[in-house]
């Protein structure tokens, strides 16, 4: 089996080369931003460069030791996104850069810890309902009076003492693990399709229970937490995973119909949903430019338009004029200073991540691992799509973070845990 023996070494060479490239790109972006902004390279470039180098090297060592057959491109791709995000946050909110670095460091530590603790993804299959309950609890924690906080109109923050975080981010990862385990166990049942309905074969109505339950839960998130982004994301992840588990396109259709019904119901009854749609349609009308929400989206559009094909150059534009350019609107800030070439590169990085994730799902031998990899991949891909589509006005804007790029501790840490699980499945699938 010389072939199999040669493979991990070649893969690790690729991982190391790609990670070094990721470090160079991240720090290059940071240095260039400083050059453009202040006319000189940031004084702490060497410091951040070496700190990131140490963190990446430590992560590579953990991958080598605990997941030697891991996919070679997954970690470096996330590293590039993290590096670019750090530089752009330094660009638009210099005061948050140090914090973002700290979150990235904690995120990478969480990544390593997850790989060390979860030696085999099938370990997680044993705790289906525990993980599911914890995930649900995290999701609904912001509703608890006294703990939940309303920030920017959405009730998705939790404050305990001086610690403030967004539990739905970690909840998302746990729910994906739960769904993978649950759907894998019930797959055969959900596959049974006996009722014919036009070109589709539908499962018995009684087996549609889980779909309706997930739909109901996402509506609860929408109504109680006023969190449009999370609501949309959860339902979409669920439908995609159900489709992957059963190979029945009928579920996609049912999901789309339920989504349409939920969206219509939300639009009819919730003022903030109506406002989001109105902003989406009328963001660029001159009369609205100074209104909250409209102006933000308009500034994002102006930034993308100013950027054009190649952008104004890092540190040379005015992306700090966009409200929330360090979180939800970071994609527009990248668009202004690196142009279409920069934003397309970001999209391609997510495409790479999604491609590698689905590849791991295909190669995985067990049903749980397949579903887990597909679900985690869908979570990253859908989230990136929802926010990039929102910023570019393809769809109504819903506030979620751009994975690995946006400022925010909860998001960065949860996404690194998600990444670790994806790396774990990819390592398992190569080993068999």
């Amino acid at each position: 089996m010389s072939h199999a023996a040669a493979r991990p070494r070649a893969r690790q060479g690729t991982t190391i080369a790609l990670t070094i490239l990721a470090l160079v790109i991240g720090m290059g972006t940071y240095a260039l931003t400083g050059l453009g902004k202040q006319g000189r390279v940031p004084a702490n470039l060497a410091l951040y460069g070496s700190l990131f180098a140490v963190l990446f090297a430590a992560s590579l060592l953990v991958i080598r030791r605990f997941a030697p057959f891991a996919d070679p491109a997954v970690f470096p791709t996330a590293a590039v996104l993290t590096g670019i995000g750090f530089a752009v946050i330094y660009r638009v909110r210099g005061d948050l850069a140090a914090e973002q670095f700290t979150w990235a460091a904690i995120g990478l530590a969480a990544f390593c810890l997850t790989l060390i603790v979860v030696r085999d993804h099938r370990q997680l299959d044993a705790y289906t309902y525990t993980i599911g309950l914890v995930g649900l609890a995290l999701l609904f924690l912001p509703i608890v009076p006294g703990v939940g906080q309303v920030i920017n109109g959405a009730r998705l923050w939790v404050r305990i003492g001086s610690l403030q975080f967004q539990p739905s981010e970690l909840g998302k990862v746990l729910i994906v693990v739960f769904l993978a385990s649950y759907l894998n166990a019930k797959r055969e049942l959900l596959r049974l399709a006996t009722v014919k309905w036009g070109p589709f074969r539908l499962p018995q109505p009684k087996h549609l229970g889980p779909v309706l339950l997930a739909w109901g839960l996402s509506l609860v998130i929408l109504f109680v937490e006023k969190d449009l982004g999370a609501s949309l994301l959860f339902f979409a992840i669920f439908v995609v995973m159900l489709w992957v588990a059963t190979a029945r396109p009928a579920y996609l259709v049912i999901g789309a119909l339920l989504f349409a019904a939920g969206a219509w119901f939300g639009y009819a009854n919730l003022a903030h949903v109506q406002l989001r749609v109105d902003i989406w349609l009328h963001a660029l009308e001159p009369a609205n430019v100074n209104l909250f929400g409209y102006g933000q989206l308009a500034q994002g559009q102006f930034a993308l338009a100013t950027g054009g094909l190649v952008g104004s150059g890092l540190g040379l534009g005015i992306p700090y004029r966009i409200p929330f350019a360090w979180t939800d609107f970071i994609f527009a800030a990248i668009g202004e200073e690196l142009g279409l070439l920069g934003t397309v590169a970001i999209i391609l990085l997510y495409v790479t991540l999604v491609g590698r994730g689905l590849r791991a799902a295909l190669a995985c031998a067990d049903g749980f691992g397949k579903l887990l990899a597909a679900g985690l991949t869908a979570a990253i891909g859908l989230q990136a799509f929802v926010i990039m589509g929102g910023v570019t006005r393809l769809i109504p804007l819903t506030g979620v973070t751009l994975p690995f790029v946006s400022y925010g501790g909860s998001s960065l840490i949860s996404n690194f845990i998600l990444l670790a699980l994806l790396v774990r499945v990819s390592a398992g699938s190569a080993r068999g």
Partner: protein
Amino acid sequence: MSPFVLSALKYSLLLLLYFFIFRAIRATVTDLRRTGAREARPRKASAPRRAKQKPRGKGPGSVVVRDAEGRKLAARKLKGSLDVGRGESCSIRVEDSYVSQQHARLFLRDGSWLVEDLGSTNGTYLNDQRVTSPMPVRPGDLVKVGKTVLELRR
């Protein structure tokens, strides 16, 4: 710093970014091609090459049982028909909660050793390929049952 230098640096950065994406995607493509080639070229096709490397003795003569960490647990000579599982009656008994009572069988047919799955819960894998029908085994092959690995030797 002149605008020209800044632009040049910006383009270099974008170039580097696309080079990264190119490398990452190329890794995917070669990976897929490798997997595809492995799947397209069935086990029979690789037999002559193997035969050239090891001219003596075609079939396996013994089997080594290893746990998930690769520790050697037992070794058996291949004789007659060997059942693998947690059950009392199995000739190769493994203490592995992922293994079924009657999990797999190694048996001789027409002079060659085959492995078949006995309807186990977690499946039997021959070199990472799920065993759905009896498949021939050769020295060096790895049969995975649960977390336990059976290594075939000459």
